[in-house]
């Protein structure tokens, strides 16, 4: 029965959380009040872990909450339920996009939205920077990494590895 409720609650979150991964957080706080799957303190730890482990935050949160509530199958159920609405809706949109891409009004709208989305991404970057860059050593590491990126244009995975090593070497 717990699997049914996990599915139902996370399906609702997948359907209602519009935007980025952290949008799921307020919904999860509601769950902490409503069920005994996890406490609010555990939820705060969960956010920290989700932010610093690979994978989209929203998915990490669902896996973690599900696992806490009902073990491995709980994690799988919650994740599947969270993802399902996106998949269905995006397949419908992908079909429509193929049809309407050449429409001049759709074209205008997309041209106008792109700079706005760039601004949103920059805003997200600023928020990450505020948490990550707290001293002059961090500014130095940031500058080194950015310079490497601008000069060599290698895969981001390489820079993430370099950054992890720099973090350990400089004891950030």
């Amino acid at each position: 029965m717990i699997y049914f409720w996990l599915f139902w609650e996370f399906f609702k979150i997948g359907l209602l959380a519009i935007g980025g991964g952290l949008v799921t957080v307020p919904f999860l706080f509601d769950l902490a009040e409503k069920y005994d799957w996890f406490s609010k303190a555990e939820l705060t730890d969960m956010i920290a872990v989700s932010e610093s482990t690979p994978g989209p935050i929203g998915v990490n949160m669902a896996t973690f909450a599900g696992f806490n509530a009902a073990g491995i199958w709980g994690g799988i159920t919650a994740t599947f339920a969270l993802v399902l609405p996106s998949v269905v809706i995006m397949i419908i949109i992908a079909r429509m996009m193929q049809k309407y891409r050449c429409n001049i009004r759709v074209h205008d709208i997309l041209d106008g939205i792109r700079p706005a989305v760039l601004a949103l991404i920059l805003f997200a970057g600023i928020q990450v920077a505020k948490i990550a860059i707290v001293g002059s050593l961090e500014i130095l590491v940031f500058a080194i990494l950015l310079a490497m990126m601008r000069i060599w244009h290698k895969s981001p995975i390489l820079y993430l590895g370099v950054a992890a090593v720099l973090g350990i070497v400089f004891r950030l």
Partner: protein
Amino acid sequence: MRDLLSLFALFFKIGLFTFGGGYAMLPLLKDEVVNKRRFVSDEELLDLYSIGQCTPGIISINVATFIGYQQKGIGGAVVATSGIVLPSLIIITLVASILQQFMDNRYVAYAFAGIRICVAALIADVIYDLAKKNIKNYMAGIIFIGALVLSVWGNLSAVWIVLIAGGCALAIGEVSRKVKKR
């Protein structure tokens, strides 16, 4: 079958190396699906982010589903989405069982401090490239600055910013077409 497997492997890799939310994934996605494989253009990738902002669900899932569908239909969508979700599922399940020891390890904490700085640098790098390509006229510049002001100081949600930008662009397009007709 081989195409499906390589789609799965690609999105598994992207899921494995994304630290943070959907925006942190953009540099990696741009490198893999735009620069290396040419599945979509820069513009199409940004369009996917706009759609992701206004539709339910997590942006990274939306992007994976869309690109998977575009490449290989519904099978591709399912495979790409499973690929991006699976690393989280495995890692979080493992971490959940040893949470406290993991986060308390000093070296793990140092490495993640470095990784967070890198995510900020990657976003700065990709913004520079994309801004050069997509902000070419005054209208785009004004929308960019307006959206930034609204999100930093206006505390306005992303959905509204995207809808307002789209509405302005549509109105300006309509007016300029009418002016040209005369």
